[in-house]
């Protein structure tokens, strides 16, 4: 799972641009490393809409049917 061309997103709390980082996302006991935008200070992560409604749904469904 990778993110498409990353837009510019700022963390409103830390006033820092989010940076690409390897983030763990998990579901039903399975975990994956994904490159996502993350605030270097508070570490909040940005999940873009196309990822949430595309690849994530596919993976969720596959894991649910396992």
């Amino acid at each position, binding site marked *: 799972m990778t993110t498409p061309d990353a*837009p*510019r*997103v*700022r*963390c*409103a*709390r830390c006033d820092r641009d*989010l940076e690409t980082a390897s*983030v*763990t*996302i*998990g*579901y*039903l006991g399975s*975990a994956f490393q994904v490159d*996502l935008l993350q*605030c270097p200070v*508070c*570490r*909040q*992560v*940005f*999940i873009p*809409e196309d990822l*949430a*409604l595309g690849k*994530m*749904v596919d*993976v*969720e*469904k*596959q894991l*649910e*049917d*396992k």
Partner: protein
Amino acid sequence: MPVNEPLRTMDQQELRALEQQCIQECAPPCMAACPIHVDVRAVLREFGQGEDDAALQALRRTLPFPGIISRICEQPCRPVCKRSEAGDPIAIAALERACVDYAVVKAEKASRIPRRSQRVGVIGGGLSGMTAAHDLARKGYTVTLYEALQPVGGRLWNVPEERLPRPVIMDDLRVVASLGVDIRLNAPVCGNPDAGNLNLDPDGARPALDMLRDEHDAVYIAVGQVEAGTFGLATDQGGRVAVDPVTYATDRDGVFAGGSMLRAPEDYAAIRSISDGRRAAISIDRYLQQVSMTASRDGEGSVTSCLYTRTDDVEPQAIVEAAGADGGYSRSEAQREAQRCLQCECMECVKVCEYLDHYGRYPRKAVREIYNNLSIVKGSRYANQMINACSLCGLCAEVCPTDLDMGAVIRQSRETMVAQDRMPASAHDFALRDMAFSQSDHFALARNAPGSDASDVLFFPGCQLSAESPEQVERVYAYLAEVLPPGTRVGIMLGCCGSPADWAGRRDLFEANRTSLRETIASLGDPTVILPCSSCHQAFRTNLPDVRVESLWEFMAARGLPSDGAAGNGRVVSIHDACATRHESSLQESVRTLLGRLGYEVAELPRSRNLTTCCGYGGIQWLANPEVTSKVVAKRVAEGTSDFVAYCAMCRDFLARGGKPTVHLLDLIFGADFDREATRPATGWSQRHENRARLKRHLLESIWGERMAGQEPHEMISLVLDDQVRARMEARLILVEDVQRVIAHAERSGRRMVLDNGHFLASFRPTAVTYWVEYSVDGDSFAVHNAYSHRMEIVVDGTDQGPPS
């Protein structure tokens, strides 16, 4: 969901019973009646499609001598042909002959079977002996056939030549020699043990059968005439060789007998001789393999078909007459006749069920797939969605000739999946959260009338009528108090009947709700419960049998309408019966009575009352597979040209969503404008919550003079939502309250991002779903620009982003 019954999971035995209950794979009548079970349906299908070679191959799969048999067969298949219920029966033998005549590749496909060392002797070169020799040679045995005369063929040579040309006999029987059978002509074997061996034992020391038995591992006797002797074998009362009716074994080990020697001359049938030879060959094979001779032989010989095929909707067609002088069909005549074949099948349930049709399954296939899905230990469960997409409406059982109820199978399977912790988390989550909302303080309410400490009658409107038409709920409550005799104490209860939990296989949630309902109703003095919702009615009747219930429609039919106005003026409407009322004929009748009193004329839909269809809400189908629900609704909508009247809030909404002007019966009863109500857009999911909460608030204020407790912080968040965003949230099953929670959390914690366009983006995960909202501040409100969600979790240093607040 039967209460207090232990959870059962489908075992192999139950699976087989269910598979057998579905008759779709039963042989059609023609094939069943044929003693050797020629797949007539497949032969005719291929020929009808112009596949002459494939048709002959299909014929040859069971029939050893098609040229001969197609000319002389007695056709036990024809009297049972279902086409005779809509025209003449199919000319089956004539079409078999056409297959032989018009196929280009005529030869039997050679099979390469490893040779076996065992030897089989066949006495008699008639149809039965030749069939046995043919079958055993194809299984690899070394077969020697002894024919008393010359050539082989037996009584075939007695058939008039114009009916059975001699070259046809020679051509067809040649295949036996080509399979390597050693055919000995002019080799009579004496059937009289006392007369000695005329041919094989020149010394006459031993009877012929003894000698043959010594030289072969098994022997099949098919000498045709009983006069040929009984070979010293045990005989029946008619003096004919006695055989086991299943195996054709005589009393002598390794010796089998069949064909016309077993029967009186008037009982002769060529196809039966072939069948005897085939069945004896099966026995000889098993005898030589030393396996059970009797296991799994129930279906052999001519049997009665268990397949049901509906013919009352079939256009009658007469037989295609052959124009030629010899009575045989031309190719095009034969093709037309073959196309008259009904291609018998049952499919009664699939014909009426868009769900089964969508998945391309008839129950026999579906139950096997479901069983496999429930049994998988490791691997993907591909049938999960199929199991969750059934509406549990019960129509399949209603039309099934054997009453097979797929809904019951599916319901049990869902419970099993939940018990195994294998139910996909997303399958029913949204519906169960909707149910939880109805059980929460936002909606749940149980009150006696002001000043009463118990109720005689209790109005239970259910969740979806309250969500759709809260004002009608208040009108009905007022009507009940008015129409009942003075002094009758009328209470009201808002809550959930538990159907979503039942449909989702969640016994735990269902049982908890059932117990709570029972206790609450008892605390109100065990009143009679009046129910407008069909699902509630079914749930109460099934699971709370000791609670007195009455449908609102029966109540109104008995007690009178709120007003006398017959506003219908003879307008014609069609009733969409709710599937939960399938077996509630008096309830359905009362709906018709009410419409009549309101001045409407009813044009019944072709499938109504016990044959009604689900709207797609039942069984939570709409959530598991919205595509199936769209098909279900589209099919229903196309069934009637008049506008529809529904008496279930969700039916009304789903049909209206499908473009059918549909009005709820209550709206007609309370005098709403038909056309305005019929085209009113469906109520969105957020609005449903809002309406329920508003109903409770208003009832408390107007009847009991109470104000509801304060709102939660997120409920104070005021949103600005344009139509586009609203529609997107609706499609993505994101509620206003979900968005409010995200913004409340972001504004309180400061945890939010800023996008290029200056909008804020924030997320929050209340329980199992993470919601994202793009918004901007708009005075005291928040303008929402987008919302989306996912179920996967972001794990940061072992902690989930956005702790619940």
